[in-house]
């Protein structure tokens, strides 16, 4: 079975033709770099996405601190994870890359700040 995917790893947005047999990838065509191969594999077996958002602060210089997961998380958990982010509040100054929640939702990823907040 051939499945068509669009690679989201870079702005080129390569069209991938993924040859699948018994739920396993036999061959990936159309990718212009190795990222496409990895993306296709993850997309078929366990789609992953980096989650980004903003967390409310209190008593700090900016009202919202931008955040992201330091590694991709399962696509199926994205909405739930976005809801979790909304419940958080940061009250201490943070540097870019500082961990806000470690082992976020038990997914073995950290939620980190993407901007300095004084």
């Amino acid at each position, binding site marked *: 079975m051939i499945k068509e995917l*669009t*690679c*989201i*790893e*870079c*702005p080129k*947005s390569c*069209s991938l033709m993924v040859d699948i047999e018994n739920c396993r990838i036999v061959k990936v065509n159309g990718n212009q770099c190795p990222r496409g191969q990895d993306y296709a594999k993850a997309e078929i077996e366990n789609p992953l*996405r*980096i*989650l*980004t*958002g*903003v967390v*409310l602060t209190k008593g700090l210089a*900016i*009202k*919202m601190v*931008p*955040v*992201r997961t330091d590694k991709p998380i399962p*696509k199926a958990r*994205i*909405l739930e994870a*976005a*809801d979790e982010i*909304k419940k958080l509040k940061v009250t201490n100054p943070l540097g*870019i890359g500082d961990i806000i929640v470690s082992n976020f939702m038990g997914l073995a990823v950290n939620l980190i700040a*993407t*901007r*300095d907040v004084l």
Partner: protein
Amino acid sequence: MLKRDLVIVGAGPAGMAAAISAYENGVEDILLLERDQYLGGILNQCVHTGFGLNYFKEILTGPEYAHRFIEKLKGIEAIEVSLKSFVVCLRADKTLTYFKPGALETAQAKALIMATGCREKTREMVHIAGGRPAGIFSAGLAQKLINIEGLLPGREIVIVGSGDIGLIMARRFILEGAKVKAVVEIQQQTRGLMRNVVQCLEDFDIPLYMRHKISKIHGRDRVEKVDIVKVDEELNEIAGSEFQLACDTVLISVGLIPENELIEMAGVKLDKKTNSPVSDEVNKTSIPGLFVCGNAFKVYDLVDSVSRDSADAGRLASEYLRGLK
């Protein structure tokens, strides 16, 4: 009056890259003016990933991409950064007048780089019938409200145009718990990158109506619903194809135009259609020593390309200054 070798207006990705490059090419007296209270420009509200793969070979969010340049700027004494500084007047001899808290300053520059970015096209530019109820936003304004101000502008959203900012905002609204009813694109092809169609719309089953347009916005005090109609290849409405969607918010994401009011004031020739400076070379204008870089010169798809070309503007300014001596 202040006298500077090089003045740069705007400290977004273009202005920061130009300033650093000018210094690296030997300019030692640089004033960088930024109207906001932070460096980084619009990158600060682009909290999603997708920046930096070309320039840094890494995938970064907007604030992270900006941070790389901000840190570099901080280490360069020759660059004076003036925040909350809003330029209101520019003359052909490269004198500029700007407000900053408590002062009205005038600076005379030997060379000038304008890095004033672009603005979003508005509803008025795409002619959508209807009244003027609350709830109609440009996509970038909605992005600022959510990501910087922490405010949710609406709960049921229809997006006009498939530009990248609109696609990014479709996902952003979903993650904030709002409903995105449709993205409506009049053309046959999406304006934004395919990867954004996939990761922002398809991931969340948001309907994308190609070759459709919004023919009317309804609502008195607040947006209540929109009329959507299919169009043919000449973009004429197809009778009988109309339908309505209830919503409280309409986002406009129909493209960007360079912001060049100041250089127009100084007499730089602009292309009336694109609002870009008339020029046969990137970053140059009809006034020698007055350069324009980044989205103010032409609207780019990627900030990585803005950084690359703006570094060239810094180099061009340094060469111009050397030629004066």
